[in-house]
């Protein structure tokens, strides 16, 4: 049987092997307190808790994980802390769910802990369906054991003996590594029956998700594990009381679980010293879009957006002007350039109409049309709505039709007001978070970029020069009157005398762009506007 001594033995034997390997690779700094961090500019401003082992340990080796103090928190808690005390520490740490809503994890655990039942469940939500998000995937692929340890600690605390990881089938590497990790943990005796001789049993199984975004919603995920159609449940009961198979169930996100072992290793005070008062700790973001250095970043909560985009991300690509950043994925909002000094934490983002979400962060430059961006995100939600409730199923579809109309240049007076009013109903009357947040991209872009909507509707212009239907080819006064464009135009809508400035008949123009190509590069008199 595995004992505490044996666990320490493994660490003692294996740690030098890991350190030697890392020294050879040369991409890390090994500090005196035993912490190992990746070196390089990109990591300087980052504080890595959830990602602390990513890129450092071999995810296929449980010895590697143990060498960086893995499973020490779980083992210590089993021997040295009562379940009530663990719940208390968790509450005191104020770790907030990283899956989107930011609900305090300790409070959730306390609910299930207090509720008496013969069977309880721990679920890890690894469905990560936001387009462009890969935070959870990275943790699962690079540090699967930390998720298992987080779940085991939670299971011990609330009195659950069975865990499920609901992971996207589209993450085959994550699935494979999780399988190996669970096998290794069972073999060693970290999972299974009578763990470390304490009498505590805990097992973890994988469940593969079918790839529907809505299955990431807690109650839909439970339905899916039960073998039903993944539709959200109405919340008559709390999941912590009646969840999976009507038993007390804790659902937490991958990143949330990844934080748990570290909190118990280094203490509540240490954790609370990072981040802000109301949002302690860090958050992992997938920084993407028109940013120089895209990638995963983990920063303390409360860091201003500007530092993330410029100091870590290196600013906007190709020296273009920064226009906005979208946080929170399809359920989030667009934050305009003038609010770039907003600190990134749950409260501050909510105040300006966006959300933290699961950590998507899309940078947009001056050529991004905000109406089109809203349309892009809504298009995703319309596809992913489960179809259960009317406001989301029907309302988002109508909203998308309105946006299509505006983007195609057919917007009418009153469309903006129609969208705002519809958004209000979809937000307040939808059943689950998907519908309740679906309008955020639309309402925030209307709020911060109303002039762009108006330009599309009233002037039939796309100020960012991005909506094809609203572009106009125009010949500037640089024209030398060579007539090449007129010859190239397939519908003969360009007129002008030789050596005089030519003009495009906008009514006839089919926007093929032939004139622009035909105009001699030295002249470049044809522009899109």
């Amino acid at each position: 049987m595995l004992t505490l001594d044996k666990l320490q033995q493994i660490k003692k034997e294996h740690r030098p092997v890991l350190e030697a390997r890392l020294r050879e690779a040369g991409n890390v700094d090994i500090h005196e307190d035993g912490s190992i961090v990746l070196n390089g500019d990109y990591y300087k401003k980052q504080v890595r808790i959830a990602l602390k082992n990513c890129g450092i340990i071999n995810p296929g080796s449980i010895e590697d994980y143990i060498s960086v103090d893995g499973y020490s928190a779980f083992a210590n808690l089993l021997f040295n802390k009562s379940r009530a005390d663990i719940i208390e520490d968790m509450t005191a740490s104020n770790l907030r769910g990283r899956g989107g809503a930011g609900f305090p994890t300790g409070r959730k655990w306390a609910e299930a802990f207090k509720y008496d039942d013969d069977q309880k469940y721990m679920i890890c939500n690894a469905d990560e369906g936001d387009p462009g998000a890969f935070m959870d995937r990275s943790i699962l692929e690079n540090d699967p054991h930390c998720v298992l340890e987080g779940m085991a600690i939670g299971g011990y605390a609330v009195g659950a003996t069975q865990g499920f990881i609901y992971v996207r089938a589209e993450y085959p590497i994550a699935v494979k590594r999780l399988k190996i990790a669970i096998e290794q943990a069972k073999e060693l005796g970290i999972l299974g029956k009578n763990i470390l001789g304490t009498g505590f049993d805990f097992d973890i199984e994988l469940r593969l998700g079918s790839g529907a975004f809505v299955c990431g919603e807690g109650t839909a995920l439970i339905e899916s594990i039960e073998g039903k159609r993944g539709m959200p449940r109405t919340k008559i009961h709390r999941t912590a009381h009646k969840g999976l198979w009507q038993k007390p169930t804790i659902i937490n996100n991958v990143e949330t679980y990844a934080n748990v072992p570290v909190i118990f290793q280094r203490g509540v005070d240490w954790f609370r010293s990072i981040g802000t008062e109301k949002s302690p700790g860090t958050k992992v973001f997938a920084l993407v879009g028109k940013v120089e250095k895209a990638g995963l970043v983990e920063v303390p909560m409360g860091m201003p957006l500007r530092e993330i985009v410029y100091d870590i991300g290196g600013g906007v690509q190709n020296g273009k002007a920064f226009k906005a950043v979208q946080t929170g994925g399809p359920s989030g909002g667009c934050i305009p350039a003038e609010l770039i000094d907003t600190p990134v934490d749950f409260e501050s983002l909510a105040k300006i109409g966006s959300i933290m979400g699961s950590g998507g962060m899309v940078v947009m430059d001056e050529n991004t049309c905000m109406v089109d961006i809203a349309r892009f995100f809504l298009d995703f939600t319309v596809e992913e709505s489960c179809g259960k409730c009317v406001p989301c199923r029907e309302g988002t579809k109508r909203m998308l039709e309105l946006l299509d109309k505006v983007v195609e240049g057919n917007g009418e007076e009153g469309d903006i007001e129609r969208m705002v009013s519809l958004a209000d109903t979809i937000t307040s009357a939808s059943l689950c978070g998907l519908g309740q947040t679906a309008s955020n991209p639309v309402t925030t872009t209307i709020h911060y970029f109303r002039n762009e909507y108006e330009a599309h509707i009233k002037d039939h212009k796309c100020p960012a020069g991005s909506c094809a239907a609203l572009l106009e080819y125009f010949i500037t006064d640089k024209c030398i009157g060579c007539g090449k464009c007129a010859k190239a135009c397939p519908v003969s809508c360009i007129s002008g005398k030789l050596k005089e400035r030519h003009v495009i008949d906008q009514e006839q123009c089919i926007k093929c762009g032939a004139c622009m190509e035909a105009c001699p590069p030295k002249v470049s008199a044809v522009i899109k506007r």
Partner: protein
Amino acid sequence: MANVTITIDGKNITVPSDLSILEAAKKLDIEIPALCYDPELEIVAACRLCVVEIEGSNKLQTSCSTRVKEGMNINTKSERVVKARKDVLQLLLDSHPNDCLTCQKSGECYLQKYAYDYGLKFREHNGAMRPELLDTSSPYILKDNAKCILCGKCVRTCAQVSDRKVLSFAERGYDTKIVCDADQTMEESSCVSCNRCVTVCPVGALVDKRLLGKIRSWEGTSKVVSCKSCQYGCEFEVKSKDINNVAVVARPPANGRPLCLKGRLNTELLYVDNPEEPYRKIGGKFVETSWEKALGLTEVIEKLEKLGKKYPPSK
């Protein structure tokens, strides 16, 4: 069960704490519109029409799925509530065919009723409509997905009889639809024509086909009878017009009653003056048959005839 005192639209009432707001409101004769709610079925809170405002909560809450709590102050008709309901109904109307003139459900359709209550109309638009997917394969049930509002009541009532579970949701988003088995026609599917779904459908998406063209909801008279085929005694309505009994329709199955085709046909033969021919499903095909065969009486009648020769019935 403990009692709680709550206020609904300014009126106080004391009710058991396991009641929903909708149930409590009913006790005060306050009607809250709802399309997916049915006291006999699992609560799903899908139509969102029954939303109310609760003091201290900035979200609207569905009254069918929210339990009463001591001191709750509920407003069922606030401006916000009415706007949300109107929007929800309009969204349903925008996808619904404008067919009330000839729809069999007219007069007892809940979408029609609520549209009237809230003063809403069909409106023309260029956007999407539900595709026409009329299933006429069954002689007993007409399934018109274009009229379906996806309340899911049919799915839930069908699943209450364990060996049926024929109906389910398919696809997602705006393309969501109700299908039989693996998207088969009613004829090909395992549907047993019990008509449970027809009795709960709030709109004209599932209608009793043997009623078509015979009588409209507001015409004639109707009388409730109990089926005598088995001990459950499911209820049917006998519809009469101009002193003729023209049709029999199933009433919603309550108290664990199953409803079945045989019982329906029995009742139909017993009460309807001019019953249409019955059909039986044989190998996934509906075939016209005789009443004797449909009711499994062939052998009984033969026997009775035989016995009748030997023992002439007493006067």
